[in-house]
């Protein structure tokens, strides 16, 4: 077996793909598989025990979002939240404003309502830094604009979008505002009142909760049609028997995440990320994606950096680093598991070659100095090796 592939001493720097469950999350979920297995809709005591657990989780989520408990809807995760926002609000004749750097759960839903659904869609492009300028959103407004959907933190670059300014524009225009906060939840404070959004989607597994569960903030009075119909679960906003262990896990993960927001965890992660980033861009032919015109990074979540390595095929570098025990990602996985150049980086104006030559490093909040040391040790070596065999490099440098 090649070195590094055996699972020993692995460094995981792909937290934006998913995160491991924290031990306390596993513990919190444990009783709800076998002992407290009841259906939260049942009248009997077994059911009531499940109902109580779901309600407690709902209270924690309300605290995370800064909203009322009745405004929290549990679902299956970020994709469902994004789909529900678009499919649940938009009707033929409406207009949607979103951005070209959204997650595909928004982009594909936009394509569907825009295609056969008779909805006009405007995709606002970011600035080269990865930031969406609020005025670009304002410029896209039409009288029939019904929904604005913008992500809070970008999954590829970590760049934080100016959602408060966009929220004001939405309010002035009388449009609904949905925020995909999947990559922001747990990493920065969320306050739906201050942002002024009507809908906000998060996913548990990006913040050390279980996969397949998420939550959505739905502001009272928002005329959101449910995506799934059936029983009267979640106040008729999302049918289907509650995923009780999942919801409990999400609640626990959110509780821990709120503590982490206040105990300096993310300052520590930011320092690690900055050391990693600085170390990597000192190599020749590298640079940061997501920098402003002054070359400095724009406001980002603390754990993410996205770096280009010229004369390198990002896909091969991901494999090479994996075999050295380092998990990172480049671009987005296509149908077969192969990599496509990131649509986010392309929208920021990178050419295809540089987009393909870019890698995302996203640190877990448990990342250590040793992790960063290891990555800074093996990456330059892997990049050198790749450049040595690259025909592009041979032609340009040799």
């Amino acid at each position: 077996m090649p070195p590094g592939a055996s699972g020993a001493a692995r460094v995981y720097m792909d937290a934006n793909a998913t995160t491991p469950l924290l031990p306390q999350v596993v513990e919190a979920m444990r009783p709800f598989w076998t002992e407290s297995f009841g259906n939260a809709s049942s009248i009997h005591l077994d059911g009531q025990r499940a109902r109580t657990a779901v309600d407690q989780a709902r209270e924690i989520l309300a605290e995370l979002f800064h909203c009322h408990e009745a405004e929290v809807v549990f679902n299956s995760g970020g994709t469902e939240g994004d789909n529900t926002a678009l499919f649940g609000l938009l009707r033929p004749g409406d207009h949607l404003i979103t951005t070209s750097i959204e997650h595909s759960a928004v982009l594909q839903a936009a394509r569907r309502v825009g295609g056969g659904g008779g909805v006009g869609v405007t995709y606002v492009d970011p600035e080269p830094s990865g930031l969406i300028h609020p005025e670009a959103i304002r410029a896209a407004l039409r009288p029939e604009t019904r929904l604005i959907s913008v992500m809070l933190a970008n999954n590829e670059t970590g760049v934080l979008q100016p959602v408060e300014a966009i929220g004001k524009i939405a309010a002035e225009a009388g449009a609904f505002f949905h925020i995909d906060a999947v990559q922001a939840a747990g990493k920065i404070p969320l306050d739906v009142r201050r942002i002024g959004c009507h809908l906000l989607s998060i996913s548990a597994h990006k913040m050390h909760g279980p996969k397949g569960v998420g939550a959505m903030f739905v502001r009272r009075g928002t005329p959101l049609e449910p995506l799934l119909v059936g029983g009267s679960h979640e106040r008729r906003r999302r049918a289907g028997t509650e995923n009780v262990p999942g919801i409990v896990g999400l609640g626990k993960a959110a509780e821990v995440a709120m503590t982490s927001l206040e105990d300096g965890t993310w300052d520590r992660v930011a320092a690690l990320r900055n050391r990693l980033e600085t170390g990597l861009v000192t190599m020749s032919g590298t640079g940061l994606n997501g920098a402003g015109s002054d070359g400095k990074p724009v406001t980002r979540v603390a754990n993410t950096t996205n770096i280009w390595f010229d004369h390198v095929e990002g896909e091969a570098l991901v494999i090479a680093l994996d075999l050295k025990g380092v998990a990172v990602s480049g671009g987005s996985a296509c149908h077969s598991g192969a990599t496509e150049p990131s649509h986010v980086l392309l929208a920021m104006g990178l050419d295809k070659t540089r987009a393909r030559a870019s890698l995302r490093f996203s640190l877990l909040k448990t990342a250590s100095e040793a992790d960063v040391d290891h990555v800074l040790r093996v990456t330059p070596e892997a990049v050198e090796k790749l450049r040595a065999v690259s025909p592009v490099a041979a032609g340009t440098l040799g």
Partner: protein
Amino acid sequence: MPERDTIAVAMSGGVDSSTAAAMLAQAGEPVVGLTLQLWDQTRLAGKHGIPDAPKAGRCCSLDDVYDARRVARQLGIPYYVVNQEARFEQDVVRPFVAEYLAGRTPVPCSLCNNHLKFDQLLQTARSIGASRIATGHYAINEYDAERGRWILKRPADTAKDQTYFLFGLTQAQLAHTLFPLGRLTKPEVREEARRHGLALAEKPDSQEICFIPGGNYKQFLTAYLEEQGETMPETAGELVTSTGEVLGRHEGISNFTVGQRKGLKVASPTPLYVLQIDPASHRVTVGADEDLATSTLRANRVNWISIAELTEPMRVKVKIRHRHEPAWATLEPGVRTDEVVATFDEAQRAVTPGQSSVFYDGDEVVGGGWIL
């Protein structure tokens, strides 16, 4: 930890490459599985009669990637899918379309092997720290110290011989390439697959060209050009005999290949075959079966394997298409440097421009080139 000499195995999800990977892994070699994603099978599906759902057993279908992944899991080896769709389109699909539109009959598998597969595999392998690659091709590759060259030979299973598609391999490529199946027959390979407990041991072989589901070239050309916003060039013209007599008209030269009998749409007391396609005048010449026979062949873009170059006439057997029994000929250098001329002992039927010709000395591949 010192790095051992890793082998990157090209895994297509078929029996052959899976078994090759299993044999190397069992021999204790450090192995990494790679699948080159070359063509999105859903891309033109449903257009112009192309089947909606690709059948199983086709390269690059999701089922095949799943199969390859499962084999890798079973063998406990790392496995990755590498996206080469853009390169494949540029280096294989585009030239294939251009050749067809120019009235020739291309061999995309040789194009792919010559210009993409081995280059990309070796490059990806090196960049991840593997110095050698292995594939499930039926061929033998051995170093001959006396001649100082890597020699490509016909495999044990002559019915599965794939050397015809491998004539373009350079010495540098052969030096880093393993063909673990070269000394096995297909039934032995299936037996080996069963012995390793591979679930795909009974999976049928894929025969068709990977990016043309259903094997209908014309459907593919039409759908591809439409997708590209291009129109099929107007190549309708006359159907003539070799003496110049006009028998009728045809709808476009890309409907024809040398030796073709069906679809000529002219009445004749004796069967007629396509003898020649002239891309300039769009004229298609037809004639009797015996008129198809040619005694010489010119080929260019020649790659030599068992010899460094051809300096004097050489007796070889020449294979002019995949299912052709190699025929005796004398090979001589051509007018240009990368050209050769083969003079057959007995005239051969339907020597087809665009196909490859491969020269054999016994079991050894001397070299090969593209028929002019």
